[in-house]
């Protein structure tokens, strides 16, 4: 609550320029992130820490892939699917990518409608986001099942370097967990929006604090981050 009063006390001064504002924000003895609320700043900092988690996974993957003397399995063939008698490389992964990007698009629009206090559209778009996210997790479960049937294990696989399995399950498993948690968060927030909790200042069951439509944006930040991580996994793990 203190953050709120500090933030709104910003005088309507002339624009001093971005660099001057940067040094002012950091050197003034008060809240550094003046444009962002406490909740939003903390979500960003959490996402920063998560960036390091995924960064370290991808780094570990890079290290084992570079240092193994056994050839790395070709992801283009490993993740190929036969559709209509044709062997399509990486097709499932491509569809998963499009699904996740679409969910990010609907999420961004949900945030915009949230700030317009359009309750119905916000809730429906969030629901669409959650459904797309659940579709993504379902496709990932299908992919895991297929690979496990083909003999991929964390300690070996039929096509090449043993480290392929461990890095694959580790990285996609952690990402899938993030997506699943995101789906749950989206559904919880969407229900609150639908009920009008953010219009009536209803107190949350967990924090006992009245929520605002900013909560939609914060859930959105997390969701876009999940999409962002997938961009890196797609490029570095599947396409490399």
């Amino acid at each position, binding site marked *: 609550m203190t953050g709120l009063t500090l933030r709104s006390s910003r005088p309507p001064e002339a624009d001093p320029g971005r660099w001057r504002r*940067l040094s002012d924000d950091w050197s003034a003895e008060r809240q550094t*992130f003046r444009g962002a609320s406490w909740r939003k700043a903390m979500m960003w900092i959490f996402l920063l820490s998560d960036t390091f988690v995924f960064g370290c996974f991808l780094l570990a993957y890079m290290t084992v892939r*570079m240092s193994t003397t056994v050839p790395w399995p070709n992801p283009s063939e490993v993740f190929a699917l036969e559709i209509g008698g044709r062997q399509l490389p990486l097709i499932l992964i491509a569809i998963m990518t*499009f699904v996740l990007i679409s969910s990010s698009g609907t999420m*961004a629009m949900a945030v915009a409608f949230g*700030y317009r206090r359009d309750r119905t559209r916000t809730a429906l778009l969030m629901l669409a986001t959650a459904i797309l996210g659940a579709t993504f997790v379902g496709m990932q479960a299908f992919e895991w099942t297929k690979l496990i049937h083909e003999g991929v294990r964390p300690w070996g696989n039929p096509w090449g370097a043993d480290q392929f399995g461990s890095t694959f399950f580790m990285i996609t498993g952690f990402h899938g967990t993030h997506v699943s948690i995101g789906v749950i968060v989206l559904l919880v927030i969407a229900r609150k929006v639908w009920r009008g909790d953010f219009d009536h200042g209803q107190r949350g069951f967990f924090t006992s604090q009245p929520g605002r439509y900013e909560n939609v944006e914060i859930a959105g930040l997390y969701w*876009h981050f999940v*999409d962002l991580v997938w961009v890196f996994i797609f*490029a570095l793990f599947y396409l490399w």
Partner: protein
Amino acid sequence: MATQAGHAETHGHSIRLYLLVWGWLFVLSACSYLVDYFHLTGLLRWSLILLFMIVKAGLIVGIFMHMAWERLALIYAILVPPAALLVFVAIMTFEASYTLLTRLAFFGGT
């Protein structure tokens, strides 16, 4: 609370902008898929993959996550620390090359 609600509206986040970014993300993803589909290899392959990856990440962070409208204090606090990962990449590249070299030298490439 009024300032909170007004925050996004003053930036004029239009649905059109989001649809445009969405479209671009689709196009860029399709491009990176085509890189694999046409079996491009070598320097061309991974420069294209990295290019599409960075542009997509920029669009998501900048527009979808509203980073473009935040103050520099937050932007730098979030975007500068991951640069440490690049240093880590450099370190681990040396380490991995060294491991590979010793494996080849002592185990004869098996």
